[in-house]
């Protein structure tokens, strides 16, 4: 036991690998938030009036809202006037090739092990790299353009495709949806936009990597994905952030709209800086992600591997409006040291014969708290709705917490809703069995945790799955008891 404790301790005490920051020239505006700041952001981005109005409306609503306090999280008060709401690399880059990109930036990506070039060449992934809010480089744009697919930065989309933006922005996540979504709507700097036309199957995985970079800047990403009738797309989002002492705020919004028979798969590996082993620093991650299955037989599937952030508040959701539409949520959330996570999903069944599946695997280690919170709601008209939820929690060590808060609200008799949850500690007999075959406790824990999370990891695209597995192992290093 003692030996195990020791190993677990060693494993948990491993420092964040990706903690470094690069010195770019930043174009920032002073900290604080008021209507003028919002006007400046909008003006800097040369936005049309409807965007400014969208932002101002959101800001006015936000001022009347209060930060939600129902989550199982302990968050020190956040001073929203101490945050810088806009930072962009000074030289607005419009590069033809990677050679022109700031070497510092490339170096950063190299340290992360996600070199753009290799990504581009080896995996065939088009990468839209977002560093501190402004899109720097989009690759494979031409290939995509041939198919009529639009994949670009959000600002670019505002300029080039204002009609699409005006029609769909705020459809999944209205400005008043919640405190953080309202804040994002008011100040979001940039993000990604994706439109898949009717009948098109996107030939490659689309991907963005987010990073928080400038000291004291909040990160307010906005992603909008529209899948038109009979289209199909798989979207990857990965996050790593450099080490910072003060807590950084991240309040992103992701909106997905799936029209008739469209199929959208959204995968995330989130590895923002979780703070050090004493709970100092780390990212506050308050994210609103929601997809609407507007069309009949459409499908939205969320897969997430969450290992980072000091605080995670995130509920990727599906509104199943179209008849026969399908929602999926697959999640692995790992917390260690002093991390806190309150994450889960909402499945709102509106259309007939709608189906949803929830698989959540929580892993708590160190002194962390890990909560699943999920809502399954069946409206009166949602005949034959089906939901199956499985929420498992694994505890590593006796100082952490694992919590489960499902909400099930059913108003239709022909629906069948099933929820199961279990909580248990990592099996000592499993560890011993591995030991007896010559496998060290640390490797055994990594193996068992990966096995436990496998059902979800299997849903990730191949290249992501490997990264996620490594991440689980790294995040656990030093942690079981």
């Amino acid at each position, binding site marked *: 036991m003692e030996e195990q404790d020791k190993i677990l301790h060693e494993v948990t005490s491993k420092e964040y690998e990706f903690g470094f920051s690069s010195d770019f020239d930043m174009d920032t505006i002073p900290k604080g938030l008021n209507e003028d700041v919002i006007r400046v952001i909008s003006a800097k981005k040369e936005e049309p009036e409807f965007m400014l109005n969208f932002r101002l409306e959101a800001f006015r609503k936000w001022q009347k809202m209060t930060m939600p306090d*129902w989550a*199982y999280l302990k968050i020190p008060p956040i001073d929203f006037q101490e945050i810088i709401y806009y930072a962009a690399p000074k030289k607005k880059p419009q590069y033809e090739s990677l050679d022109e990109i700031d070497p510092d930036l490339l170096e950063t990506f190299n340290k992360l092990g996600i070199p753009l070039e290799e990504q581009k060449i080896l995996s065939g992934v088009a990468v839209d790299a977002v560093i501190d809010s402004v899109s720097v480089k989009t690759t494979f744009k031409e290939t995509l353009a041939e198919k009529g697919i639009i994949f670009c930065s959000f600002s670019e989309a505002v300029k080039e495709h204002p009609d699409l933006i005006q029609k769909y922005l705020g459809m999944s996540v209205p400005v008043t949806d919640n405190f953080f979504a309202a804040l994002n709507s008011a100040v979001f700097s940039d993000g990604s936009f994706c439109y898949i036309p009717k009948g098109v199957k996107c030939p490659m995985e689309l991907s963005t990597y987010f990073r928080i970079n400038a000291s004291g800047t909040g990160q307010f990403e906005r992603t909008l994905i529209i899948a038109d009738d009979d289209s199909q797309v798989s979207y990857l989002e990965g996050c790593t952030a450099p080490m910072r002492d003060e807590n950084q705020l991240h309040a992103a919004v992701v909106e997905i709209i799936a029209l008739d028979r469209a199929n959208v798969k959204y995968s995330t590996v989130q590895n923002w800086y979780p703070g050090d082993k004493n709970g100092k620093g780390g990212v506050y991650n308050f994210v609103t992600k929601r997809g609407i299955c507007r069309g009949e037989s459409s499908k939205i599937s969320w897969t997430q591997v969450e290992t980072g952030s000091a605080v995670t508040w995130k509920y990727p959701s599906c509104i199943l409006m179209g008849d026969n539409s399908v929602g999926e949520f697959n999640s692995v959330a790992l917390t260690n040291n002093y991390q806190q996570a309150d994450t889960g999903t909402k499945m709102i069944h509106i259309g007939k014969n709608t189906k949803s599946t929830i698989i959540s695997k929580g892993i708590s280690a160190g002194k962390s708290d890990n909560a699943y919170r999920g809502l399954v709601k*069946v409206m*009166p008209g949602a005949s034959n709705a089906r939901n199956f939820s499985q929420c498992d*929690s694994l*505890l*590593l*060590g*006796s*100082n*952490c*917490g*694992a*919590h*489960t*808060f*499902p*909400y*099930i*609200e*059913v*108003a*239709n*008799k*022909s*629906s*069948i*809703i*099933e*929820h*199961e*949850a*279990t*909580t*248990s*500690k990592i099996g000592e007999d499993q560890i011993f069995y591995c030991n007896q075959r010559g496998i060290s406790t640390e490797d055994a824990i990594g193996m068992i945790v990966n096995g436990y999370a496998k059902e979800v990891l299997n849903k990730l695209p191949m290249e992501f799955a490997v990264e996620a597995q490594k991440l689980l192992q790294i995040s656990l290093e030093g942690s079981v*008891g």
Partner: protein
Amino acid sequence: MTQTRINKKAVSEKYSELYKEKRSLLDEGSSPLLNRMRDVSMKRFEQVGVPGFKNEDYKYTNLERVFGKEYRHVLAYETVDVDLNEVFQCDVPQLDTYTVLLINGWYYARNLQLEGLPEGVVAGSLKQISNEQPELLENYLNRQAALSNDPLVALNTAFAKDGFFLYVPEGVKLEKPIQVINLTRGQEATFSTQRNLIITGAKTEAKVIFCDHTLSSIDCLGNNVTEVFVGDGAVVDVYTIQNQNNKSNSVNSSFFKVGEKSNLLSGVACLHGGLIRNNLVVSLDGEHSEAGVFGMSFTDKRQHVDNFTNILHNKANCLSNQLYKNVLDEDSVGAFTGRIHVARDAQKTNAFQRNNNVLLTDTAKMNTKPQLIIDADDVKCSHGATVGQIDLDALFYMRARGINENDARMMLMNAFAHEVVQEIRVEALRDRIDELVEKRLKGELAKCHSCDIN
């Protein structure tokens, strides 16, 4: 409910005003043990007020409506013009119990003497015993309820004057269950505040059955609190059978403090009623104890039943097992919140919970919120919840064997309910509940015969 919007503040203020107005009446004739808690409890109530939708713990039950109505508060004992012992005879076959009657929250003055109670057992009126033998209560009264943040528990403490009291001294085993029949009767809308206290010493055995009945077809609201202290090594059963008319509303908060190596069984059967909210808190405060917590409800029309449980595993090596089942018909609404909280050092905890619900119509609604809060690692905890219809495959199988659809449905529903019923450890009561459930499912009046009177 075409009620006009109720001003939340006004609802709560009504109770504050009533309290001020009746302050001296509340103290009159009550033991100082009760009176000393009133002011502080009223303050606690006023801080939150009558819980509305915004209160996470009352998310699925709007109490402002029933608390907002005008009631006559029964703040002093009222003599009854008939002999309830004759009017009311519980006729459950073979159910041999010590029976006591309470009327509108008060211990009935003409209760028959309980014959044959073992020596040292004290059973009777909380008001009387708290005045005459305060030493029996002083270390127990409000010791569990005061830990609650629920404003309605505080409201009960502020207004409570009487209720049922039971004391079972160490080592005593009660051969027969004690049956407490709570009657509601009156000419106009009535609000009752009943306070029960059950203390069982170490190595005791006791079974208590609460039966809630209405004798008049009036609007009524009960805000009741029961505290049960289960001694070390004791085996205690507490059953509640709710069989009231549809205008009868109640909030019942029960607190169980369980010592070590003891065994508690709590069963709630809700057959009839208007709006019913049952709060149940079990604190497992000693090692190697077991708690079985069971409940079922059958609702129709516009009934509303909300069961809220909180099982606190404060000590290691305990087992809790919860099973709640609801069958919802017509426009009824059901809610279940089941919380399991395993404290930091409560290792080797086994805590299980299941909630199964059947919706019979498209206008019935079920909300369920099972919760696990786990702060120890060497535990086995699980919860499962389902909402759906009866098993259609099983139904088809039975029909394919020649059983007509209606009978097949009934059989399946009975089987569904029986899983809870079978946990009852009083045989005659178990049979009776099975029978009542069957009648209830067939749509026949499922009242006990003697409760048919108006």
